[in-house]
C-alpha cells in the first residue's frame, strides 16, 4: 500500500505541478469580446504569420516581417483602419513544416489571431492550410507562389495567394526562353517539393523538349551541390532554370564554379534578389570581397519581377516604402531591402482589404470582400490580382528582367496570364498604378 500510495501521490504531484506551471506560463487573458471576431476588438486587430527567421531559408525571407511591421506602425500612427490598430505576431518555423504546424497551433490557440497574413513558404504553409480552413481562419496572402493557395477556393475557401504563382512564372519564363534561346539545353534546378513541381509544370508547357536534366535539392539538407552541377555539366546544359530560395542560388553558383560548370542562369523571382545573393556569394568566395562587388557576380542572370524594388528608387511606390522604412524601422534593422518592400507591399494589400471591408469585420466578411473587390485593388503589383469567387490566385503577371550591376533591366514588358493553358498577353495597365498621397489605401 505504501508504494501504491506513494506512486499515486507522485503521479498526481507531477500532473498538478505541470498544470500549475502551465497555467502561469499561459496566463494571458482572453481578449475582450468587444470586437466582432476572435482577434478583433474595437481598437485592435491581431494577425499572425510564420516565417523562417532561422534555417536555410532565413537569408532574405526573415526580413519580410519587418516590412509588414513597419507598414502597420505607419498605418497605426495614422489612426489605424476603422479605428483599429494592427498587431502582427511573428513566429519562427525555420522553414520546417513540422515547426510551422506547431507555431500555427500556438498562434491560433494561444495568441488567438484573427487571421494568418503572409505565412511564408510552400512546404511550410502547406502543412497548415487544411487546419486554417477547417477552423475557419482567414489565411491571406501566403508568401509563396504555390498553386494550392488559390486554384481551388472550394477546398480552401479561407486561403488567398498574393504573388504570381510558380506555374505562371514558369510559363512566362518558358515562353521567353523558347522564343529567345530556342537552342538552349535547359537544366532545371528545383526545390524538392510543390514549389519546384509547380515551376516545372509551367516551364514544361513551353520547354518540354529543351529540358535535358532535372536536379533537386532538399532545404535543410546538404549544402554541397557539386553532384547536381556535375550532372548538368555532363549533360551539356547551358541554361539553368532555378526554382529555389536565395541561399540556394548562392550555393548553386559556388558549386557550379567548383566543378567548372558554365551556363546562363535564370532564377525564379523568389531566389534572385541581387543584393542578398550577391552578399552571400561575396562572403563565400576567396578572401572577403565587399558585398557591393559580390553583386557583380550576379551580372547576366535572368529573373522575373512583379513589384518595383530597391533598384528603382524613383518609383512612387519605392519612395513610399523608403519613407515608411526611414520612420518605422526597428533599431538594428539596416536598410530597405527587396524583402522588406515585399512585406510592405503585402501589408498594403491587407490594409486595403480591411478598408474595403468596412467597420464590421468578421472572418467571413474579409473573405467575401476579397472575392468581390480584390480583383480591382490597385497596388504596387505590376499586374492585377485574380481574386474572385472562383480563384484566389494572386498577382497575374510578371516581366522578365536581366540583372546588371545589382539592378534589373527589363527584357520584356509585363506579361499577364493564368494557370493552365491561359494565353500569355502583354499588359502594362496595372504597372502605372500610383500610391495615394497619404500612402494608406482608402
Amino acid at each position, binding site marked *: 500500500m505504501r508504494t501504491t500510495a506513494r506512486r499515486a501521490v507522485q503521479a498526481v504531484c507531477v500532473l498538478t505541478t505541470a498544470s500549475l506551471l502551465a497555467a502561469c506560463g499561459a496566463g494571458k487573458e482572453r481578449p475582450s469580446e468587444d470586437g466582432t471576431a476572435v482577434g478583433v476588438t474595437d481598437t485592435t486587430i491581431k494577425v499572425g504569420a510564420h516565417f523562417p527567421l*532561422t534555417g536555410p531559408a532565413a537569408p532574405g525571407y526573415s526580413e519580410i516581417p519587418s516590412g509588414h511591421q513597419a507598414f502597420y506602425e505607419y498605418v497605426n500612427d495614422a489612426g489605424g483602419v476603422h479605428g483599429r490598430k494592427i498587431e502582427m505576431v511573428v513566429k519562427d518555423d525555420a522553414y520546417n513544416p513540422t515547426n510551422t504546424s506547431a507555431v500555427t497551433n500556438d498562434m491560433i490557440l494561444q495568441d488567438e489571431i484573427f487571421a494568418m497574413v503572409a505565412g511564408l513558404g510552400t512546404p511550410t504553409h502547406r502543412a497548415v492550410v487544411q487546419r486554417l480552413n477547417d477552423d475557419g481562419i482567414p489565411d491571406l496572402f501566403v508568401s509563396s507562389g504555390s498553386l494550392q493557395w488559390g486554384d481551388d477556393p472550394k477546398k480552401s475557401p479561407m486561403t488567398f495567394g498574393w504573388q504570381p504563382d510558380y506555374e505562371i512564372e514558369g510559363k512566362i519564363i518558358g515562353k521567353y526562353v523558347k522564343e529567345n534561346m530556342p537552342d538552349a539545353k535547359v537544366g532545371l534546378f528545383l526545390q524538392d517539393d510543390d514549389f519546384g513541381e509547380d515551376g516545372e509544370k509551367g516551364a514544361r508547357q513551353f520547354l518540354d523538349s529543351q529540358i535535358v536534366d532535372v536536379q533537386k535539392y532538399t532545404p535543410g539538407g*546538404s549544402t554541397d551541390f557539386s*553532384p547536381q552541377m*556535375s550532372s548538368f555539366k555532363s549533360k551539356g546544359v547551358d541554361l539553368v532554370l532555378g526554382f529555389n530560395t536565395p541561399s540556394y542560388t548562392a550555393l548553386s553558383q559556388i558549386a557550379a564554379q567548383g566543378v*567548372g560548370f558554365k551556363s546562363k542562369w535564370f532564377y525564379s523571382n523568389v531566389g534572385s534578389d541581387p543584393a542578398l545573393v550577391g552578399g552571400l556569394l561575396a562572403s563565400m568566395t576567396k578572401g*572577403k570581397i565587399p558585398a557591393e562587388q559580390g553583386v557583380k557576380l550576379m551580372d547576366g542572370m535572368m529573373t522575373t519581377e512583379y513589384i518595383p524594388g530597391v533598384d528603382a528608387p524613383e518609383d512612387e511606390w519605392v519612395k513610399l516604402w523608403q519613407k515608411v522604412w526611414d520612420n518605422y524601422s526597428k533599431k538594428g534593422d539596416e536598410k530597405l531591402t527587396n524583402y522588406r518592400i515585399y512585406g510592405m507591399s503585402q501589408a498594403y494589400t491587407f490594409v486595403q482589404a480591411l478598408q474595403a471591408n468596412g467597420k464590421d469585420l468578421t472572418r467571413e466578411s474579409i473573405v467575401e470582400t476579397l472575392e468581390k473587390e480584390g480583383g480591382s485593388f490597385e497596388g504596387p503589383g505590376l499586374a492585377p490580382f485574380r481574386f474572385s469567387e472562383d480563384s484566389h490566385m494572386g498577382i497575374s503577371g510578371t516581366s522578365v528582367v536581366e540583372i546588371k550591376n545589382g539592378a534589373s533591366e527589363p527584357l520584356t514588358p509585363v506579361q499577364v496570364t493564368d494557370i493552365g493553358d491561359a494565353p500569355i498577353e502583354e499588359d502594362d495597365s496595372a504597372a502605372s498604378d500610383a500610391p495615394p498621397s497619404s500612402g494608406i489605401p482608402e
Partner: protein
Amino acid sequence: MQQFLDTTLGGLVLGAVYAAFALALCLIWRSTRIVNFAQAAMAMVTTYIALSLINADVPYWVAFVAALAAGFGLGALIERVIIRPVEGKAELNAVILTLGLFMVLHGLTAITFGVQHRGFPAPVSTNAIEVGDTSIGITPFGILSIVVVAVVMAGLVVLFRFTDLGLRMRASAFNGEVSRLLGVRVGRMLTLGWALAAAVGAVAGMLIAGGDLVNPSFMDPFVIYGFIAAVLGGLDSPLGSVIGGLILGLSLSYVTGYVGEHLAPLVALGILMVVLLVRPSGLFAAAAARRV
C-alpha cells in the same frame, strides 16, 4: 566519365575532411577511451570564432591559426572541467555527457552568434581548375584541403612516433598508472590529447566551412560521419581514421552523385553496421579484436 572523375575528386576532398574529423575522434579515444560526440559542436564554435575575426578584417590565415588555438584551449578546458570526472567511469556516462555538451555548445553558439546562414570565405579560389579548355572537378581550395589534412596527419605521426612528448602521450593513453610510476604527468597528457584533438577538429571545421554557408548546425552531419569514418578505420588507429575518412567520403560522394543525397545517411549506416558486425576492430586495426 567526366562526371565520374568529378565525383571521385569531390569525394577525395570530402574524404580528406572526414579524415581530419575522424582523426580528432581517434585522438580522444586513444587518450581517454571516450567517443567525443561533442567534437562537431566544438569545431563549429572555433569556426565561428574564426568567422568573427574574418568579418573584423583579420587576414584569413591569422583567423585560421586563431581557430586552432581556440580549439586547443577549448579542448583542454573541456577535458579538465567536464570530462575528468567521468574518465574511467561507466561508458554510458561519458556518452551522455558529450551529447549534452553538444547541445549546450550548439545553443550557446546560436545565442551568441545568431542562427543566420553566413557565408564563409576560402583562402584560395573555389573555382574549378582549368586544364586547356576543360575544367576538372577540383578546386584550389579542395587541393588545399587535402594538403592541410596530409600535413596534419604527418605532424601527428612525427609527434607520436618521434618525439618524447608523443611517447608520453601514447604511454598515458595506454596505461595511466604505469606511466605515472615512470614520472609521466598523465593528467596533463590527457588534457593535451583533448586539446590536440580539438585543434585538429578546428582544422576540419575551417576546411568544411570554406566557400560554404555556415550556421550553428553546419557541422551536425559530422557527428555521425566522423564517427563512422573513425570506426571504419578502427577507433584506435590514426592511419585507419584517415583511410576510413577517404573511403566514406568517396562512398557518400558516389551515392550523392548517382543515387540521391537523401540516401547518404542510410548508406553510411549500412557501412557502419557492416563494419561493426563483421570486422569490429575496423578495417585496418592491427590490434586484437575488441568488444564493440
